[in-house]
Each structure stands twice: as structure tokens, then as C-alpha cells.
């Protein structure tokens, strides 16, 4: 069966080759009327070198894409990606607004669906790529999602990201959920693996852990909890995370339960959010909250985690990425989930219609055909493996980090194990040289989710889900963890087996545009909430905590919190309705 699949893809490849041989002169450089009549197929080679501006709302690096990914794109498309990253530039939407006002956002644009997409299409900043779409075979695999995103638009302007062929009620994450109470398992073991009933019971355990390991290997003081401020949005970001341990996720100022059974206003005195703030407050009283939390940023925290100075991580992808190196795990050290007995961890369901971000081609693109071809490539197997190597645990380029073994199953190469699991390393010169990590895609976006099956191999893109990986991945840390978790191999398995997962069906709901007034009030209110939340976490005593809470509620109300809440509540309910709809339709 496997070889069938491969033969078919070879055939299509051949067909594309022949077709493109007929018309090499694709409309490079022209941006006139791409909507009139079908465009010619993409050529296999592009003659002139081109640098394309990629406006990428998710990218965390700015400038020309270097390393092996850069070389791969250049080899394929004679294209250099010049990534423009508002995240790096800072200042929220300032860069977006400036570029939009100037009438040119970029050759390739990665933006949000909903408000921004509509606005860009209306403003004539994106190009209708429908004439090329018929040649975009890789993204056409997800035609339902593409059609859905472009619903109401006159043509195809956007290709959705994070698409998948999985059912919406299945988790889109790999072997770990996005959220979870992850602790330093070795230190947790030192204090005797105490059982944890609920969130509040975690505090004394963390206190014991901090006492058991007062200093890290580098001689610096450890703290059980360490926070950072640079991701704060609608609320204090860190305080939202434990809410997800109970199946809630945010819709503006509303915490919505995955199954639609509960909607909380975050400022409600009984809300989970306030409970978590109280939890932080108590942690600070116990002396287990890093006092530097208030002034440090994510990077500082991350390097502390790498050094072993922090014992708790809100997310697996943070703690494990920082500390679970092969060397540490061989010594039984690393972050693993320490389940709360009453947890019901929120998981994002595989979204049939894709995620929040969409790709588009800018209306002033120098060579829109090449832009479209490049976007399409990101949805091909080769593109997914290469592009999602950082974000979704895809394996990296075939032949470099992995290959098919004698049984036709994908398997990591020694180099792959070294760079993905170990200490990293330099890529061979023919792949572009430089360190592997530095050469990964700067786009920082997942096109096809890692759990999805690669049609060419029949296995997921995510190497952690390969049998060949799992067979070799066991180490003292995971063995110890699995031994205490009833023999389950992965967090996801454990959670599913114990009914501790709340999957928010992947409905790709995007909230409608806020009116300017609502969005302004929202900005004012969220500044108040974030500010007060931090003060509450570090309040001197209970009385100050209560006073700050009351003050936050009254200030927010005075600014018009209720108006925004009404909007968010309606959105949360719409989202829930849509979730139920897709589950009914796709299962």
C-alpha cells in the first residue's frame, strides 16, 4: 500500500513536470489580472533570483532566512525570504499599520483571518490567487478549509494554516497537550511523589520540592515558580494557564469550557482566573515565587529553566524544550506532568478549517506566481517536514534528519537524533552549513499539523509519534514516569486513558471584528487587568489582595468592562455552537 502511495505521487510529480515544460514562461513579474482565466502551471525552475518580503505575524526573527531552510527554499524557488516580523519590531500593530498605510504589506503575507483578512482584501492589499489555486495541489488537499476561509470573498485570497485531515474532536497536539502542570520529575521524586488533589495542593508540594533542591547546578537559587510579563494580553498570561488545566480557554474576557458547559467572566470573584491569582499570591507568601518574575522576560526565564533554576512549567513545550536534553534525561532529570487528581486539561482539537493565521500573496508582489508556488510547497510533504521542524515537531528534511528504514518506516538518522534530541550540531555543507537550530524556518507557522499523516509515508509528520522513535526514546526519566503512571508511554495516552482531557473541537472559530469602541475599551480594560493581576500576585497580605481585586473590578467596570464582556460572551457561545456543528458534521 505504501509503495502505491509513493508511485502515485511520483506520477503526479511527472505530470507536473511535463505540464510545466510546456509553459515555462509563467507570469513572472506581472501582477495584472491574475483573476482572468486560468494561469499557467508553475515552472520547475525559476530563472531569476528574487528576494521576497514575507510579512509574518508569528515570526520571532527578522531578516533574511539563513541556514538549511533558506538554502532549501533558494534551491527550489530561487527565492530568498526576507522575513518581516512585527514581534521583533515590537509595539503591537504599529508595523502592520505603517506598512498597510503605505499600501504594501509584503510579497507573502501571514496574517489573521477575520478582521485583518477582510480589511486587507477590501483595502486591495492581497491578491486573488484563484487562477493559480488550481495548480496548488498540495494545499488543495485541504480544499474544504480553503473554501471556508475565503467564504464571502470574491476569489481565493487566503490559504489557511494548521490544517489537518483529522477529526475535529481529536487532539491536534502530539504526544503532549499544549498545557499541563509539568514539574521537575526528579525533584518531585526526591520528595516522594506525593499525590496532588487539586491546584491548591500543588503549592505545599512545590514548597517541599524547592526545599529539597534549594540551589541549581550553577549554584544559583531555585524557585518553584517563575513568571514573565512579555506575553500578557487580555490578562496576565501566566495566570490564564492553570485555567486550561480545568478545561477552560479564553475568548476575550470570558473563560469558556471546552464542552460548552460553563462560561466565566474572568473578573467574577469566583472565576478560575481569580483563583489562580490567589494561588500565585499564596505561592509568593510561601516564598516559592521568583521575585524577579516582575521584571524578567520569557528569554530570561527560559535560560533559568535550562540551568535548572525553575521547578515548574505551565507548558510541556517550555520546560521540556529547556531542560529535557538527552544528557539530563539519561540521569532521570526532566520536566514531566504531575497530574492533579481533578484536572481536565484543555486540548485544541484538530481544526478541519485550519487555524487563526492565513497565508496570502500581496497585491504588489514582484512575482505572485512564485509566491503562490512557495506557499503551496509549504503544504507538500517536503515543505511540512522542513517548515514545521521547530513548531510542531516535524522531523526536518528527509535525508538529513530522517530517512525510510528497511521496512519503509521513517526513522531518525544519527544526525537527526543529535540535533532534535541532543546537543544540536552543524548541518553538512551541501545542506547549507551552519547550526541546525539556526537554520530552521523563521516562518514559525504550522501549515499541516504534525499529527497528520504524511500521504507519502503513511506516518505522522511528528517524529515523536513514530514507532521507531518511541522504541528508542525510553530513558530513565520516561521509564520512571511511566512506571508511576500505570505504564502509559506518553502524557497524551495517560490523559486520554484517565479521561483527563477536554478537547475543544477544532471549529476554527474566529471572533468577528470588534467595533473600534469595543476594541478601545478592551485595550484600556486589559491594561488594568494585567496591571492589577501582577500587583495581586505580589500583594503583601490578604487584605491588600482583596483591596486590589475590588479596585480592579471597579476600575474595569468604570471603563466599560460589561460592554466588552457582553460581546465576548456572545462570541464564546457562537464558538461553542460552531464546535457542536463541526463535531456533528465531521465526527
Amino acid at each position, binding site marked *: 500500500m505504501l509503495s502505491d502511495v509513493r508511485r502515485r505521487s511520483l506520477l503526479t510529480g511527472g505530470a507536473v513536470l511535463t505540464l510545466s515544460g510546456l509553459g515555462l514562461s509563467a507570469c513572472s513579474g506581472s501582477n495584472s489580472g491574475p483573476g482572468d482565466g486560468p494561469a499557467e502551471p508553475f515552472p520547475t525552475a525559476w530563472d531569476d533570483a528574487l528576494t521576497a518580503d514575507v510579512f509574518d505575524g508569528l515570526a520571532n526573527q527578522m531578516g533574511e532566512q539563513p541556514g538549511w531552510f533558506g538554502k532549501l527554499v533558494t534551491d527550489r524557488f530561487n527565492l530568498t525570504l526576507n522575513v518581516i516580523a512585527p514581534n521583533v519590531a515590537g509595539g503591537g500593530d504599529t508595523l502592520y499599520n505603517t506598512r498597510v498605510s503605505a499600501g504594501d504589506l509584503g510579497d507573502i503575507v501571514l496574517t489573521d483571518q477575520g478582521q485583518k483578512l477582510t480589511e486587507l482584501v*477590501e483595502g486591495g492589499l492581497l491578491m486573488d490567487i484563484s487562477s493559480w489555486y488550481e495548480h496548488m495541489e498540495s494545499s488543495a488537499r485541504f480544499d474544504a478549509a480553503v473554501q471556508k476561509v475565503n467564504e464571502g470573498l470574491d476569489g481565493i485570497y487566503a490559504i489557511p494554516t494548521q490544517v489537518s485531515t483529522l477529526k475535529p474532536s481529536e487532539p491536534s497536539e502530539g504526544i503532549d497537550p499544549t498545557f499541563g502542570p509539568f514539574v521537575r520529575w526528579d525533584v518531585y521524586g526526591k520528595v516522594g511523589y506525593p499525590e496532588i488533589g487539586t491546584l491548591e495542593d500543588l503549592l505545599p508540594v512545590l514548597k517541599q520540592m524547592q526545599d529539597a533542591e534549594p540551589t541549581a547546578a550553577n549554584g544559583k537559587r531555585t524557585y518553584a515558580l517563575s513568571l514573565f*510579563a512579555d506575553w500578557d494580553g487580555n490578562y496576565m498570561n501566566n495566570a490564564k494557564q492553570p485555567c486550561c488545566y480545568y478545561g477552560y480557554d479564553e475568548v476575550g474576557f470570558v473563560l469558556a469550557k471546552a464542552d460548552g458547559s460553563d462560561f466565566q467572566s474572568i473578573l467574577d470573584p469566583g472565576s478560575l482566573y481569580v483563583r489562580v491569582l490567589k494561588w500565585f499570591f499564596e505561592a509568593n507568601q510561601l516564598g516559592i515565587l521568583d521575585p524577579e518574575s516582575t521584571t524578567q522576560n520569557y528569554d530570561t526565564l527560559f535560560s533559568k529553566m535550562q540551568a535548572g533554576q525553575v521547578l515548574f512549567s505551565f507548558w510541556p513545550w517550555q520546560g521540556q524544550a529547556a531542560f529535557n536534553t538527552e544528557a539530563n534525561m539519561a540521569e532521570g532529570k526532566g520536566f514531566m506532568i504531575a497530574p492533579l487528581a481533578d484536572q481536565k486539561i484543555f486540548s485544541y482539537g484538530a481544526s478541519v478549517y485550519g487555524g487563526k493565521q492565513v497565508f496570502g500573496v500581496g497585491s504588489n508582489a514582484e512575482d505572485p506566481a512564485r509566491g503562490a508556488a512557495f506557499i503551496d510547497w509549504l503544504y507538500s510533504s517536503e515543505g511540512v517536514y522542513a517548515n514545521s521542524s521547530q513548531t510542531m515537531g516535524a522531523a526536518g528534511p528527509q535525508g538529513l534528519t530522517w530517512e525510510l528504514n528497511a521496512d519503509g518506516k521513517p526513522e531518525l538518522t544519527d544526525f537527526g537524533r543529535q540535533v532534535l534530541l541532543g546537543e544540536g550540531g552543524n548541518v553538512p555543507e551541501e545542506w547549507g552549513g551552519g547550526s541546525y537550530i539556526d537554520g530552521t524556518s523563521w516562518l514559525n507557522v504550522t501549515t499541516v499539523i504534525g499529527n497528520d499523516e504524511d500521504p507519502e509515508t503513511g506516518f505522522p509528520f511528528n517524529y515523536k509519534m513514530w514507532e521507531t522513535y518511541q522504541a528508542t526514546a525510553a530513558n530513565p526519566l520516561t521509564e520512571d514516569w511511566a512506571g508511576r503512571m500505570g505504564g502509559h508511554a506518553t502524557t497524551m495516552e495517560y490523559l486520554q486513558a484517565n479521561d483527563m482531557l477536554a478537547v475543544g473541537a477544532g471549529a476554527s472559530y474566529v471572533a468577528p471584528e470588534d467595533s*473600534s469602541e469595543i476594541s*478601545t475599551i478592551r485595550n484600556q480594560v486589559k491594561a488594568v487587568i494585567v496591571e492589577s493581576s501582577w500587583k495581586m500576585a505580589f500583594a503583601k497580605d490578604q487584605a491588600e489582595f482583596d483591596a486590589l481585586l475590588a479596585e480592579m473590578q471597579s476600575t474595569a467596570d468604570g471603563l466599560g468592562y460589561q460592554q466588552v464582556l457582553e460581546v465576548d460572551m456572545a462570541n464564546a457561545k457562537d464558538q461553542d455552537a460552531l464546535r457542536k456543528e463541526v463535531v456533528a458534521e465531521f465526527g
Partner: protein
Amino acid sequence: MNTEAATAAKAPDRRDDGSRGRGRLPSQRREGFVLFLSIVPLLVLVFLFSYFPLYGWIYSLFDYRPARGLSGSEFVGLQWFTMLVSSPTQVDQIVQVMLNTLAMSFLGIAASVLPLAFAVFLNEIRATWFKNLIQTLTTLPNFISWVLVYMIAFSMFSTTGMVNGLLESIGLISEPLKFLDSDEHVWLKMALWGVWKTLGWGAILYLAAIAGIDQSLYESAKVDGAGRFSTMWHITVPQLMPTYFVLLMLAIANILNNGMEQYYVFQNAFNKDTIQVLDLYVYNIGMTGNNLSLATAISMLKSVISVVLLLSVNALSKRVRGTSLI
């Protein structure tokens, strides 16, 4: 001021010349025209940079969305202005922001005597190398950006910074002091950072002015038996006063423009209430919050207040000094 007086004195002369011979009127006109032409570039610049931007005020009447352009955006009239005063909490916020702005500006103005005093004392140092060293060291911070100043502040005053580390290691404190993340004395702390950064730079003008003081004044004072402190107090300081007042006047005109970089880098959840000045507020709400129309409305408020302040200082100056500024 001297040159102004000189031109004022010459002007009537010329007019007299013109009225004497009517035949020279065209050439006088031509001369006037040439003179006018020579200021045209400046007028154009003034128009471009001071009046043309006022056109941008129109954005405050729209719900401006950059992607749609002004023509595609909805006209909302005075919505943004009414919103600013729509509830007591909104008004409180604006009042607090204005309070921060004025307080920190006045602290800055109050601190403006420090460069003067510094220059006067620096001038008394005899050893030239030491004087130059001090001057260089105090001028340098002016060229460091606020971001780097914050880095310095962070490495010295964060909870695990140098100062806390030192105090803890000699056993003076057991819990780190919160210098950066507290709302105590924020205005004062910001003013001190400002002084640290600008002291040496601000003194340069005064040092130049001191160099221009007629040495014979000092000599005659010495002959009359004046000591060092009396020459400083009775000669140097009075001689510097005109310079000081000009600079003070400029500072007052700029009172609402007390910058935002400094406050932007130093702001955090704990001091935001007291650190948020008008420009920073506009930035936080308008730019990061993606509402350029509201930002325009707030910055118009700033222009209005600036004009009011300027007029009142002008009135004050008329009453006190007998001359008006504008």
C-alpha cells in the same frame, strides 16, 4: 536679543531713505521681494512641519482603519472625544495621566538649576585634567539611549542586581528591595535618572556662558576683597541668569513633551499608574492598541493644553517682567 534690537533700530532708517526718493520705490520693492524670497524656504518648512500636520487632526473624526484608507473608514464625529469623558473612571485615567505628566515635567524644571550649579562649581576647579575628566564623565550619559540606561538600571537595581546583592551579602537586608517594580517615589526616581543623564550636557551651555563673562568683573571684585564664594554668588550666577531664563522658558513651552522613551522602558505593571505620561498613554492606547483615531484625539488634547499653558506663562511674563514672549 541684541541683534533684534539692532534690526529694530535700523529698520526705521531704511524707511526714511525710501520715502525721500520716490524714484527708488521699484528697486526697494525688488529688494523687499528678494528679502521675502530668502525667508520663503523657512516659511515653507514651517508650513510643512507645523501647519500641514494639523490636517491629520481629521483622523480623530473617523474610525480610521489603515487598510481601508481614510475614505473607506467610517465617520464617527466626536465619538472619541466623548469617550474620553464618558465615565468617571475614564476621566480619572486622563487626570492621573495629566498629573504624572505635569508632575514629572515640573520636577524636571525644578531640577534645571542643577546643571547651572554644577557648571558654576565645575568652573572653580583649578586642575584642568580633573575638570575635563569630570565634564566628560557627566556628559557621556547623555549619549546613551534610554534602553541602555534601563539595562544599567536593571543590572544594578533588579531584585538580584548589584545593589541588592551587595546589601544582602553584607547582611543589611534579608529580602531584596524593589527599586524598579514598585510604585513608590516613581516621579522622583524618574527625575533622578533624568538628572543623571543630562547633568553634564545641560552644563555645557552654562560653561560657555561663564567663559564669556568679562574677566574685569572678577578682577575688580577681587580688588574689593571678594572671596571665591562671593564672586560665584555675586558675579557668575547673576551673569548666567539670562541664559537660565531662556532655557527655562523653552522648558516650559515643552512641558507636555517630556518624552516617552524613558517612561516606556521603565514602565511595568507596578509603576504604570504613576509613570504613564501623556505621550506614553497615547502610545499604549493608540499605537499598541491599534486605535490611531483615539490616539489623535488624545494628542489634540495635548496641543490644546500646550497652547493654554503657553498663553498663561506669557501672561505671567507680561505681569512680572513687563515683556511678552510671543
